[in-house]
């Protein structure tokens, strides 16, 4: 009888151990997520594929793009607010396009960059020729505080960026600062074109 009790207890301990190891094991999304380098506004962040510096952030109720001929595009409205992130990006070793630019809010939600044309994320960059320009996001008005810019090479989540380079930039949008920015949001912002530096 004593041996049976010891056997059952051993089985229970082993089963608990297996469950514990299973729980401690990170899921596939965490195992293979891009390898991110962190930075803050105004700081250059380097990866093996690209270099990025976020220069400033603006908000707007609607935007229009000024193209390379000096012509104004159509006005684009939004159900939330436009967040315009101005950044300087350079490819390091090969052509690079920043398709995977996302704004990640404190609740873990990710807003992929807008499909509006003429922005920095739609520009193919050649190595050694940095470019400065806007990246546009649409988010709800109450989600701005604490938002972080995440940049990867690809826009889809289908595995193309697994274990690839990524950059996370804290945009410095504390609660009170974000609130004051939202309150002072202009109804219309004319967004300048991308410039090679």
């Amino acid at each position, binding site marked *: 009888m004593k041996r049976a009790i010891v056997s059952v207890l051993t089985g229970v301990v082993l089963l608990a151990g297996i469950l514990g190891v299973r729980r401690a094991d990170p*899921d*596939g999304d965490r195992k293979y997520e891009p390898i991110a380098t962190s930075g803050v506004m105004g700081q250059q962040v380097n990866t093996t594929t690209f270099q990025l510096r976020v220069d400033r952030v603006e908000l707007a109720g609607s935007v229009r793009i000024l193209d390379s001929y000096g012509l104004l595009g159509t006005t684009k409205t939004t159900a*939330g607010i436009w967040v315009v992130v101005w950044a300087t990006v350079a490819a390091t070793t090969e052509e690079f396009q920043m398709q995977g630019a996302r704004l990640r809010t404190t609740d873990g939600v*990710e*807003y992929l960059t*807008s499909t509006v044309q003429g922005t920095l994320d739609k520009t193919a960059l050649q190595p050694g020729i940095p470019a400065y320009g806007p990246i546009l996001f649409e*988010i709800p008005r109450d989600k701005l505080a604490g938002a972080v810019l995440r940049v990867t090479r690809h826009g889809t*989540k289908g595995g193309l960026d*697994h274990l690839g380079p990524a950059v996370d930039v804290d945009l410095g949008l504390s609660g009170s600062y974000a609130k004051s920015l939202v309150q002072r949001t202009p109804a219309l912002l004319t967004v300048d074109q991308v410039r090679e530096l």
Partner: protein
Amino acid sequence: MTTPDPPPGRTESLRGPIRPWILLTAILFALATVLALAWPAGGLREFTPETPHRRLGEPITGHRLAMKPYKVSFLAKDPAPSLGDAKPGRFLAIELEVTNVSHQTATVSDLALNLRLTVSPSGATIDRFRDKVAGFVIRDGRFDRDQLQPGLTERVMIVYTVPVPLPDPTHLTMTVIDKEYVGGFQSDLSEWYDVDDPLAIYDLDVGR
């Protein structure tokens, strides 16, 4: 070289009859396992999947999108000519109010992929790939935006061509398939996969 004989006492205990407590424990364990698996799934009642039916203006919420169709129209003119060129033909336009309730950006194309359409009186299916001619967010009088950002409610129009042999549709049955962001069968990396049971079936009259 021969294998030594096992001690006589040990042979007896291994080959003897199963002791009652072992049998009882095994039966209780089997019963407990069945109950532990069946109870959270609704017990041992017969499972009958019931897809809710909805009408125009009634909302539904899935794992990725919440939606409320507010207008279905049959049109003899292309309502969303791309690059200014109206396509010839007859069109079915569905207008919906859509909110992305997930944690990632979605598109009108993602929504359209999860609608199964059957029109009456023909009873024919509208092909979601071949017959779809446009899908866009209704904003700024243009047809070039299709992103649905989390938490932002948008008005959306999806346009289909009505194939030539079919009579003009008067009624539309729209089955909505839900998506769930989970690990797949072959890989534990998460993706949006169809949920087995439809989210809802809309019974909609087609206006002119």
